[in-house]
C-alpha cells in the first residue's frame, strides 16, 4: 500500500496510467483480439515521439521560455538530405546518418547563436530558424520523395523478438538520456541552469556551454528521428515533421517534466508518447468524427495534467 502511495506520487505514473486505460479501452472493442497488433503499432509510432520528445525535454529542462520549435523542420531537412545523399544505395547508410547528424548540429548551433548573440527569446529564435530550415529543405529537393535504401527501409519497419526495431532504438536513447540526466555532472548542470541561471552561474557552472550542448542535443535527436521516420515511411516528405511540433511538447509535459524547468522525467515520455498514439487510435476505433476526436483528445490531456501536475496551493 505504501509502495502504491509512493508510486502514485511519481510524476510519470499518470501518463502511464492514462496510456494503459486508453489501450485497454481500445482492445476491448475487439474483445482483446487486437492486443498484440495494437501494442506493436503503438510502440512503433510512439518511438518517434519519444526520440524527439527526449530532445525537447532536455531543452525544456533548461528553464522557463526554453523550447525548440525548429524540431519539425529539422526532422524534414535531415530526412531529406540523408535520403538524397543515400540515393537508395545501401552502401551510403552511414554517410546518410552522418549528414543527418551534421544537420542537427548545424541547426542547434544556429539556434543557440541567435538565442545567445542576438538575445532572441528561444521560442521566437527557434521558430525563425524553423522557417529557414524548412526553406532549405524545399530548396534541396523540391519536395520529391526519394526512397530509402532497402536495408534501412526493412530495418526500420521490422521487429526483433516482436518488438519494433525503432522502439528498441528509442529505448537505447532513453536509457542514455536517463543516465545523462540522473548520473552525470551534465545532468546536474542542466537541472541547475533550469532552476536559476544566475545561481548556476555563480556556482561556477558553464551556463552557456550547457545550454549550447543541450540545444544541439535536441536538434540532433530531431535529426535522428527525421532520418528514421523518412526511412520508416518510405521517403522524406516536406511536411513529415509538422505533427511533431505540438507532439514533442505535449509528451514532455504530459510525462511529468516541470514546464518551469529544472526537473525532467524520462519514463514519463514513454507513457505520454504511447498515450498520444493510443488516444487517437481509440477515438478512431470508436468511429468518432474529427471534431469529437479533437475535443476528447484535449479534454483527456487536461484531465491527465490535472491529476498529475495538480498541486493544491
Amino acid at each position, binding site marked *: 500500500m505504501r509502495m502504491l502511495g509512493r508510486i502514485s506520487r511519481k510524476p510519470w505514473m499518470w501518463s502511464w496510467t492514462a496510456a494503459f486505460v486508453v489501450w485497454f479501452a481500445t482492445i476491448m472493442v475487439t474483445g482483446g483480439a487486437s492486443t498484440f497488433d495494437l501494442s506493436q503499432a503503438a510502440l512503433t509510432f510512439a518511438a518517434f515521439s519519444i526520440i524527439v520528445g527526449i530532445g525537447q525535454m532536455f531543452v525544456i529542462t533548461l528553464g522557463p521560455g526554453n523550447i525548440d520549435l525548429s524540431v519539425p523542420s529539422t526532422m524534414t531537412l535531415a530526412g531529406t538530405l540523408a535520403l538524397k545523399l543515400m540515393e537508395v544505395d545501401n552502401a551510403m547508410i552511414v554517410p546518410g546518418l552522418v549528414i543527418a547528424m551534421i544537420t542537427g548540429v548545424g541547426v542547434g548551433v544556429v539556434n543557440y547563436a541567435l538565442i545567445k548573440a542576438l538575445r532572441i527569446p528561444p521560442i521566437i529564435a527557434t521558430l525563425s530558424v524553423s522557417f529557414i530550415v524548412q526553406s532549405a529543405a524545399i530548396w534541396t529537393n523540391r519536395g520529391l520523395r526519394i526512397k530509402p535504401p532497402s536495408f534501412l527501409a526493412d530495418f526500420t519497419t521490422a521487429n526483433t523478438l516482436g518488438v519494433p526495431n525503432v522502439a528498441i532504438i528509442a529505448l537505447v536513447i532513453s536509457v542514455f538520456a536517463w543516465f545523462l540526466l540522473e548520473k*552525470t*555532472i551534465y545532468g546536474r548542470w542542466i537541472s541547475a541552469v533550469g532552476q536559476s541561471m544566475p545561481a548556476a552561474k*555563480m556556482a561556477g557552472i558553464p551556463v552557456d556551454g550547457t545550454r549550447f550542448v543541450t540545444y544541439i542535443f535536441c536538434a540532433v535527436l530531431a535529426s535522428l528521428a527525421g532520418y528514421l521516420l523518412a526511412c520508416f515511411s518510405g521517403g522524406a516528405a516536406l511536411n513529415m515533421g509538422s505533427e511533431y511540433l505540438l507532439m514533442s511538447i505535449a509528451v514532455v509535459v504530459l510525462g511529468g517534466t516541470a514546464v518551469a524547468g529544472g526537473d525532467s522525467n524520462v519514463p514519463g515520455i514513454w507513457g505520454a508518447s504511447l498515450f498520444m498514439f493510443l488516444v487517437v487510435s481509440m477515438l478512431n476505433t470508436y468511429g468518432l468524427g474529427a471534431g469529437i476526436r479533437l475535443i476528447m483528445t484535449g479534454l483527456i490531456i487536461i484531465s491527465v495534467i490535472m491529476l498529475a501536475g495538480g498541486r493544491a496551493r
Partner: protein
Amino acid sequence: MTGDTLTAIVEVADAKVSFGAVKALDGVTLAIMPGECVGVVGHNGAGKSTIVSVINGGLTPHQGNISSDGERLARYGIGVARARGVRCVFQELSLCPNLTVIENTRILHRHLGGFGWRKRARKVIERSLDLVFPGHGIESDRSVGELSIAERQMVEIAMAFSDAGVAPRLVILDEPTSSLDAGLAEQMLGYVRRFVDAGGSVIFISHILNEILTTASRIVVMKDGRIVADRRSIDWTEHSLVESMGSVAKGEANRRAVRDLAGAPVVVEQIGPGLPFRAKRGEVVGLAGLAGHGQTRMLMKLHAAETSDWLARREATVAFVAGDRRLNGVFELWSILKNFSIGSLGDLTNRGVVDVAAEMERATDWKRRIDIRTQDLANRILSLSGGNQQKVLFARALSTRAPVVLMDDPMRGVDVGTKQEVYEIIRQQAASGRTFVWYSTEMEEVCLCDRVYVFRDGAIVAELEGDAVTEGNILAVSFRGAAA
C-alpha cells in the same frame, strides 16, 4: 476588560505551528501593546519569521488563538489584520519589481482605488519616504526593479509606515536593516522610535543586537519555537542577550591576529576606476562603504574573470557565496545535498559520472562542521530556515578547492552563534592560504579583515590596512568620498 488597562493590538495565545516534523512554533504567547517596540531575537530557525506570519494573518496556527483589541478573532487572516492596521516588512523583499513604486503602493493599499489613484498613491508614498528616510532621492515613478537593493528595502519600509486611510498601528519589521548601510539603518531606527513615541507599535526582528538594544522597549528571545525570555530592554545587555539565545559571546576574541602578508603573492587583481584591487594569498580582503556603491559589481567582475560560461574549468579558481540567496544562491527544487555539492562536483565526478557515495560523505562532514539543522540531507533546501540555507551556501563554497572565495554579504540573516563558527572557519582557512574577498554591510565583519577597500560611486576610493581598519575610518571615507 477594564478601562484602565491597555488592550493589546494583537495577542497570540499558545500558538503552535509545525511543518512536517519541524515544530516552528511550539506554544508561543505574545501580546503587543500600543506604544511599544518589541524586539525579537533568536537563532536561525527559532521561529521568528513564523510568528510574524501568524500575527500578519498569512499563516493560521494549528493550535492557539489570536485576539485583537480585546476581541477574540476566530477567523483571522490577512484582510482582518490589515484592517486593524497591522503591516509587515518581510525578511525577503516582497515588492513587485515590474511595477513602479506608486503602483506597488496601490497594491499594498487596497482602498486607494478609484479615479485619480495615481496622484493619491504618489502622495502617500512620497510623504512616508520623506518622513522615514529624509533626503532619500527615490523617484516614485521608477519601477522597483531598477532600484538598488537598499532602495527597495527603503521603499518597502516606507510603504509599511505609510497611511492611506487605515493608519498603521502595528508594524512588523523582519530583519529590515539587512541590506541597509549604517546611515540608512539609523534613519530608520530613529523613525521607529518616533513612531512608537507617538503611540504606534512595532515588532522588530534583527540579528544586530545593538540595533535591538537601542530601539526596542521590550526584548523577547526565542529558541526552538518557544519564547525563552521576555524583559524590558534596559534589563538586557548584549552579553546577556547572546547568552540567553544559547550562544557564547566571544567579544574581542574576534579581532584578527595581525599577520604579515607582505611576501605573499597576489592571486587576484582587478583594475578599474579608482584604486586597483589586489588580493594576496591567504588574505582576507574586505569591501566596505555604503550599500550599493559597486561592491557587488566588483565581486561579479572578479568571478566573471575567473570562470568561463562556455567550458568548465578542471580546477575552479574562485568560489562564490551569494548574499541574495533567492536570486543567485539556492536551487529551489533540489535537496540540501545537491545544493551543497554543485560547487564541487568537479571533485566528486569520475569521467563525468557523479560519485554519489563521495558526495554524501562530504556533505555529511560539512553538515556536522557548520551545524546545518536538518534531519536528512535529502530534504528540500527550502525546508531550511533562511539562516540554515545560507550555511549550505557557505559550505558549498568552502568545500571547494578554489584558492579564492568571494563573499557577497554572506551573513545576511545568520545568527550570532553561527557567525562565530563561520568566522573561525574563515580564519583557519585563510591561515592555510585561502584568500577571501568579503563584502559586508556589517561593520563588525569588515573589522575582521586584513585589509579593506572602501567603495564610493562604483570605484575604490580608499585602502585601509591593519589597525587603520576601524569603523570610524571607514565611515569617514565612505561619506567624505575620495580621501586617503
